[in-house]
């Protein structure tokens, strides 16, 4: 009577997804808000496309990837808050009395959060396409886009899980949200890096991994198959995922120091 890690992951992931869908007051605004921001910015910032050197002529095309970033942010707070709440409430102790492995909790929790984030990404993509987004790389590009978005969800989700495992406090995880939010803004999320006028801002954006995530996804929408941009995007996403996951796993193992 012993379960494989994959089975354990399945149980934890299913629980996480269930929990999320049973809190519509949390879910609906977090899905709706990025769309709303997209709608507002696509129109409000459209005149930015008149700047010399702006890629393409639709700010909607330029901004659609921002929704995926917000979806990833949601994955981070979901994965983190869920895990921290389990630690605070003692639910983790309950799980620990079963043959569950620490890594299975982590993967399961991330899988749950990323499933929800991927669902959100599909909604964003569908709404974007209906609103007139054109993806120059076509269906294949859209799939790669969803893949990269999912990977970014994993990356941010593992940061959230690391925070949770480390602090064991859902309040601390909530504090992560503004922090990540700030790093979003200090990137090329609103304007291409070349068009950022202020030198230090451009430097910061260039050093900010978020820029490369955004630019990787954006290349699929507006430039075409750009190997360099994709490599940087996937590279950053993979690197953050690995580092985040390793840190989260190590913290969680310490916390779950059962004998």
């Amino acid at each position: 009577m012993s379960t494989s890690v994959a089975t354990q992951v399945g149980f934890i992931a299913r629980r996480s997804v269930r929990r999320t869908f049973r809190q519509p007051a949390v879910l609906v605004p977090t899905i709706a808000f990025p769309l709303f921001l997209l709608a507002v910015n696509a129109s409000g910032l459209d005149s930015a496309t008149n700047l010399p050197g702006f890629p393409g002529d639709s700010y909607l095309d330029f901004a659609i990837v921002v929704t995926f970033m917000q979806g990833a942010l949601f994955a981070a707070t979901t994965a983190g808050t869920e895990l921290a709440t389990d630690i605070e409430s003692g639910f983790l102790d309950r799980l620990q009395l079963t043959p569950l492995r620490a890594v299975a909790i982590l993967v399961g929790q991330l899988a749950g959060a990323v499933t929800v984030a991927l669902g959100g990404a599909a909604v964003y993509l569908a709404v974007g396409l209906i609103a007139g987004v054109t993806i120059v790389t076509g269906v294949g590009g859209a799939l790669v886009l969803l893949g990269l978005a999912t990977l970014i969800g994993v990356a941010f989700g593992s940061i959230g899980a690391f925070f949770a495992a480390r602090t064991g406090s859902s309040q601390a995880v909530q504090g992560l949200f503004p922090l990540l939010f700030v790093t979003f803004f200090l990137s090329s999320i609103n304007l291409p890096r070349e068009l950022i006028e202020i030198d230090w801002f451009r430097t910061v954006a260039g050093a900010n991994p978020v820029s490369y995530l955004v630019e990787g996804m954006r290349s699929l929408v507006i430039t075409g198959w750009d190997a360099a941009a994709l490599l940087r995007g996937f590279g950053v996403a993979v690197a953050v995922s690995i580092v985040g996951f390793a840190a989260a796993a190590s913290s969680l193992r310490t916390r779950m120091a059962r004998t």
Partner: protein
Amino acid sequence: MTAFGQVAVAVARRNLLVTFKNPALILPAAIFPLVFLLAFAGGLSNLANVPGFSFPSGYTSFQFVFVFLQSAAFGGVFTGFAVAADYESGFARRLMLAAPNRTGLIMGYVLAGVGRFAFTASIVTIAGLAAGMQVDGGVVELGGLLVLAVLVNVVATLFGVGLCMRTQSMQSVPFLQIPVFLILFLAPVYVPLDLLDGWIKAVAPYNPATAFLETGRGFISGEPDHVLVAFAAAGAMVALLGFYALRGLRKAEAGG
């Protein structure tokens, strides 16, 4: 002091004390406007080069007014959160029992909202000046900007108080945030009204936030524009939402 005044001062005092003692509450309130100022005034400054863009005092001042009014509105929204939290913790029930004048509760929350805004407004202003924002308006005009912002702050607080006295739950927080965000952003946030495109162009002229922004920007550049419209709109909203908040209080009294 009258019972009304006593209650108002007591509620405002407690509310502000709770806020300023809790870093989890006060840090976001201080950091978010700064991030917006940084991201908009800094990151988007190239927008001033969009053909047809003209604002005499430069892009930093242009965005400063938005962030200033935004933090005014969010000072009110955060006060709404506090009301919801008070109801969830059961503290509000105690307040309702103890307060000799319950209308004073609303006034107390309004004062607390103004207090919050005073804090963020100072931070944003210092940051703006440090970033080299150009101020062309005189004392009267800057006073006008401040009064306008306080009115916006009061409007948001009254909305938050009215809503949260009805729902009495933190679950309603999104329903408080989203409309305020909506109104703020369905306006000429990044470029002047005549450069807007798409559906916002159709909505923005009817949005009171557009009037607040344009008038505010007029104040800071020393060229006030349709001041009367902006203040009339703000005054009307204070009256309307004041009524909404008062009805909310009556409903809370009836329910609890």
